[in-house]
């Protein structure tokens, strides 16, 4: 390190202003390169606190730089020499072996690896690691007796449970969620095939290079192959705001946020770079320019959130063969109707006058009136059709004296909408409160009937009801009045007399009125009506055709122009950006009008290239991270200056090279890692080693790990013997899902067997806590989560003690144990992969004798041994 001002430059300036990145066209590596800005501009920027961005230098640093400039600005050597971003250097592998690299570092510290783990511990470790499930007792015993470890590894890697475990890891990294997030947060019913795609990709050992290409351009490389093209679901796996916004700025912001999510997901998952930090200004730490960010955004400029129809060529052809003729018939019938409307035109005005003359006026939201002479009645009933829009704000019943006798009367409705937590929100009592504000709304289902109880029989002559009496909502917000109704009265509430219906009224909707005028003008409407009837039938037939599968994999459109946004502000557009790659690495740049698919394909090829040093390093490190609990780079999605340096840079390059040498297949690399002595060593504590390396970053022991949330839940299902191992398909819900404009997710009190599948198949709605999973640190897919935190809290204890699912599992395990000749032995073998000691057995026997087998099972689920792997 240098001293004084040069050191400050080295630390704070050269990460951007180096010969390679040349942010702002400037390198400060040498005095010669800095020449143009020496000393005036450099001094001015430093003095004004304009550089580095975000408030400039700290006061002490500033003083040092100024003093150094005053003293003649002597460069003590080339700044930044060898100090470029390490992860951008080409991958250089020297061969060797995993254990060799690790032992080298250990011996530098005077440490050594621990001996091989005992076999019970090892099979539990490798089984949870590769499959997220516990080994069966029989598997444990066979392995302890001398099973072959390599064969075990191969069996586990070949198991479908491997993809379920590692696919779930990958979905953390790519923020895959099955709802839109934001305020409305509706579920995406078409998202699960994308989850299955990733699980399948891991299980089939799809070369990671191909996974990248399919994630960004699956529609192009997998045309007519749904199992491939749904990979594009990666791009739209993140949140998306579905609230309609009329204001220009926010509308632009919504789209900018979509693009930001795609750029961020792509750069963080594949490149391990925080490109999104360059949205408002050049990256403060890494050689990523603000314009780089918008070049990447331009790649995604034609990608739109939503479902897409997918199908094989024959499925598509079969659909077209059926739909084509029907669509043609629809067009023909519409033409017939249009022709008839034209024919009616000359006589239309006269026809309208005739119709209006003989029909009653249409219903009105401001008030619909029915008068029927005086009748004695206690009950007045207004029956409406199903789906009547808009609700009502009042019902009035007038006697002959013009007095509203319904004021304050009880109203009973056969159907009322309920807003969460507020059953009173749309109550029918608002109909007789004399105020025209709060409204009653019907619930879903059959048409509602509103019965007003006047308390006693009185003379009634006129009934008035309204949906918006004050006409407070006009234009696009106007409230519709129910067009169909039946009004009846009754003395006893048993026998009813119908007093009015909507018969003879003009329809409320303008189109329906115009239709009547056309029919009148045509004289005979037979031809028109026949065409209408056939059109309805053909449209129904078309609608009923079995559709192609719709998958939330995005749609593609002509790319919109993408501008560099000054300060990230959507209202401050700068230059229009060409699609292109990050300029810190050799890459591509396309024309402003480059076709949509070409952009994504270019990016995919650039990322999934042997020449891109980031991609294989980042992925190799992810595998290491999940196998050992921490990566060689401890910040798996940040290989920039603000992330951590690799603990073993040469080993990382070795692994990256092995990944490429294996044709980018992951399973051989998994195998090599878990076959290493480092992976197989014991986790035994060693006080001396811990003093030098408490967290075992150098791997003097295998670091014990708490199971991830999904594995804890799946472990209970497996041990209880009720795990349904069905692979793939629609998700099950661990919450109660309701929609009333926005979605609401309620915790479930009971969990049926449909939830007894692996946790990876639980629907992962965004921002929603599913108690057992969330409390054990399962991320909520709002943001990419490349490294879960591991927490310990009393809420976890409460969940494992008292949640109804855990109790169901305890019952099931209890029954499973009871069926065995040695229940306690069986319980320990299932849950811990070992037998009980004498004192453990004695304690268990006592618990069982007093409180039953389920109590023992509940105790087992709450032990540390159940949720930790050593």
């Amino acid at each position: 390190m240098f001293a004084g001002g040069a050191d400050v430059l080295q630390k704070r300036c050269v990460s951007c202003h180096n010969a390679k990145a040349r942010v702002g066209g400037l390198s400060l590596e040498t005095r010669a390169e800095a020449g143009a800005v020496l000393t005036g501009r450099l001094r001015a920027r430093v003095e004004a606190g304009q550089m580095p961005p975000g408030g400039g230098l700290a006061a002490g640093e500033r003083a040092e730089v100024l003093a150094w400039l005053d003293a003649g600005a002597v460069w003590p050597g080339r700044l930044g020499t060898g100090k470029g971003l390490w992860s951008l250097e080409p991958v250089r592998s020297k061969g060797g072996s995993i254990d060799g690299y690790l032992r080298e570092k250990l011996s530098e510290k005077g440490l050594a690896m621990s001996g091989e783990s005992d076999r019970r511990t090892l099979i539990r470790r490798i089984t949870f690691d590769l499959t997220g499930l516990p080994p069966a007792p029989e598997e444990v015993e066979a392995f302890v007796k001398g099973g072959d470890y390599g064969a075990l590894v191969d069996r586990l890697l070949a198991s479908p449970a491997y993809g379920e475990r590692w696919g779930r890891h990958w979905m953390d990294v790519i923020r895959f969620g099955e709802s839109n997030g934001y305020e409305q947060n509706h579920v995406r019913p078409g998202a699960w095939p994308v989850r299955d795609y990733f699980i399948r990709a891991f299980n089939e050992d799809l070369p990671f290079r191909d996974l990248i290409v399919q994630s960004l351009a699956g529609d192009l490389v997998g045309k007519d192959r749904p199992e491939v093209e749904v990979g594009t679901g990666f791009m739209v796996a993140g949140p998306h705001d579905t609230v309609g916004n009329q204001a220009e700025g926010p509308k632009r912001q919504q789209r900018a946020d979509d693009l930001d999510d795609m750029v961020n997901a792509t750069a963080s998952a594949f490149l391990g770079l925080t490109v999104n930090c360059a949205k408002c200004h050049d990256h403060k730490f890494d050689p990523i320019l603000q314009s780089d960010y918008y070049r990447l955004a331009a790649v995604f400029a034609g990608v739109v959130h939503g479902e897409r129809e997918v199908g094989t060529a024959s499925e598509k052809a079969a659909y077209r063969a059926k739909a084509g003729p029907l669509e043609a018939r629809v067009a023909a019938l519409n033409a017939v109707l249009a022709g008839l409307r034209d024919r009616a035109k000359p006589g239309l005005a006269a026809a309208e006058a005739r119709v209006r003359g003989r029909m009653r006026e249409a219903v009105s939201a401001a008030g619909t009136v029915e008068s029927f002479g005086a009748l004695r009645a206690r009950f007045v009933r207004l029956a409406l059709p199903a789906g009547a829009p808009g609700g009502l704000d009042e019902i009035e019943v007038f006697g002959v004296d013009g007095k509203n006798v319904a004021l304050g009367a009880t109203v009973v409705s056969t159907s009322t909408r309920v807003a969460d937590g507020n059953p009173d929100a749309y109550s029918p009592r608002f109909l007789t409160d004399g105020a025209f504000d709060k409204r009653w709304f019907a619930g879903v289902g059959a048409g509602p009937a509103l019965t007003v109880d006047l308390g006693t029989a009185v003379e009634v002559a006129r009934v008035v009801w309204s949906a918006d009496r004050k006409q407070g909502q006009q234009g696009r917000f106007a409230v519709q009045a129910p067009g169909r109704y039946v009004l009846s009265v009754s003395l006893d509430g048993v026998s009813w007399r119908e007093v009015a219906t909507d018969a003879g009224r003009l329809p409320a909707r303008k189109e329906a009125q115009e239709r009547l005028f056309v029919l009148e003008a045509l004289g005979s409407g037979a031809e028109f009506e026949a065409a209408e009837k056939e059109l309805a039938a053909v449209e129904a037939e078309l609608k009923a055709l079995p559709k192609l599968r719709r998958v939330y994999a995005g749609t593609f459109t002509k790319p919109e122009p993408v501008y560099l946004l000054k300060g990230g502000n959507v209202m401050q557009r700068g230059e229009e950006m060409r699609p292109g790659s990050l300029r810190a690495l050799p890459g591509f740049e396309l024309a402003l009008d480059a076709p949509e698919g070409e952009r994504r394909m270019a990016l995919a090829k650039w990322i999934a290239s042997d020449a891109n040093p980031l991609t294989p390093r980042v992925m190799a490190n992810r595998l290491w991270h999940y196998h050992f609990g921490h990566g060689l780079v401890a910040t798996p999605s940040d290989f920039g200056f603000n992330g951590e340096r690799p603990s073993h840079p040469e080993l990382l390059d070795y692994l990256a090279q092995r990944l490429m040498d294996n044709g980018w297949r992951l399973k051989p690399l998994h195998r090599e890692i878990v076959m290493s002595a480092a992976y197989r060593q014991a986790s035994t504590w060693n006080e001396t080693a811990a003093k030098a390396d408490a967290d075992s970053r150098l791997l003097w022991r295998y670091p014990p790990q708490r199971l991830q949330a999904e594995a804890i839940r799946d472990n209970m299902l497996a041990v209880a013997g009720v795990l349904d191992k069905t692979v793939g398909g629609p998700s099950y819900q661990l919450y109660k899902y309701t929609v009333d404009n926005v979605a609401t997710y309620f915790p479930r009190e009971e969990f049926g067997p449909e939830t007894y599948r692996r946790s990876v198949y639980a629907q992962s709605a965004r921002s929603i806590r599913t108690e057992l999973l969330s409390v054990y640190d399962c991320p909520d897919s709002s943001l990419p989560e490349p490294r879960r935190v591991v927490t310990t809290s009393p809420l976890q204890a409460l969940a494992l003690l008292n949640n109804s699912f855990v109790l169901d599992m305890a019952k099931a395990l209890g029954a499973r144990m009871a069926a065995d000749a040695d229940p306690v032995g069986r319980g320990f073998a299932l849950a811990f992969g070992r037998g009980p000691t004498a004192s453990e057995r004695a304690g268990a026997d006592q618990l069982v004798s007093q409180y039953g087998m389920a109590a023992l099972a509940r105790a087992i689920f709450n032990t540390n041994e159940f949720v930790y792997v050593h």
Partner: protein
Amino acid sequence: MSINRRQLIHSLGAVALADLLRGGAPHFAPKAKRVIQIMCPGGVSHLDTFDYKPELEKRSGQPMPGGEKEVSFQGANGNLMKSPWKFVQRGQTGRWMTEMLPHLGAFADDMAFIHSMTSRTNTHGPACVAMNTGFVFEGFPSAGAWASYALGSMNENLPAYVAIPDVRGIPPSGPANWTNGFLPAEHQGISFTALEPIRNLERPGAISAEADLATRGYARVLNDKHAELHFGDSDLRARIASYELAGRMQLSAPEVSNLASETKATHELYGTGDSNPLLAAYARNCLLTRRLVERGVRYVQLYCASRASGVDGLLNWDAHKTLEADYSRHFPILDKPTAGLLADLKGRGLLDDTLVLWTTEFGRMPTHQEGTLGRDHNPDAYSVWMAGAGVKGGATHGRTDDFGRRVVSDVTTVHDYWATVLHLLGLNHERLTWYHNGINRRLTDVHGHVIRGLLG
């Protein structure tokens, strides 16, 4: 190294018992020990509550100068529309407030107002989340989670951070408003209302107290042996401790939510027996709030109203179409119970070291929404107030134009707001960080200035 030591401890799962119970220490002497944040979802109209605009009254019905044909969230706007209610002066300071909040008016001199709040978004979900977390995107820790992380709980038998949703439902974007985000899960807001206590708190009915005790005792025996075998792994001990903590929480939480032990006078002060069930329910949550902070809960987030329903303005403050009817419902619910809470805190001396915050999503337009008698969203100006520990009562920060359409002096963001709140808690907002995905994240992002004028 970018990851601080406390964070590293979490990422490795090596949580010591002390970390379970306590956060760190404040950066400097705090004025406030605890926070009550009242949140009114839907976007409370500043023009009908706290930001008095005589010019709006005068020119009601005329086009807004320079604002013709303005398009906001739901569409076009009509002419200027005055508040349906009068403004009156309250307290020694003569603070102008709507006549519809008489009980709160009694505390006018305790309140410090910001009339120059601005939001980055005009949409409920992101705006609500932004008010609570500093970010419009979901997944970032809420202010209460930061406070829990920084300071921990003052009562090891209760959570540090409690969120109390309204009886009408959860707010827009739901639990994202009290999430721990990427902070460790123990800093999440625990959802807890007078109606519905903590999830999984109660021993299931089918299990007797003796069976429960014996089961936990046996698990403890196994855990102790296991921890002995792996004596170096302190996280195993921490997990054992978490079970003890859970047991204590099971005893404490029902006590705190048992409002029956309060006097009749206290119940009347809050209005828990009011004939309006929504008012009574919010009043019970206000009373619960006092009991929680009194027992050492660090941060309570208390909701008055909920998410949007199918009808604008019905369940929350989102008065798009029928302002008068909507706010006639919402004002009384907010007014008496909140004032009761302030009075009770004051009477017990709790207001001296408790900071009370009143917040919302954004403001509303001075014009009526075309075709309606309501106001559309206005992210460019809204009002909030705070009272209690360290707050200069009667202070005002910022000003809007003659119609309240935009801020004309001291533009304030949620980051400035939270920088100020953290300051009152003895925390430097630039030093309270957590490394996540490449950045040392803060409640205040990379922004925020403490608003000195509000500090007593």
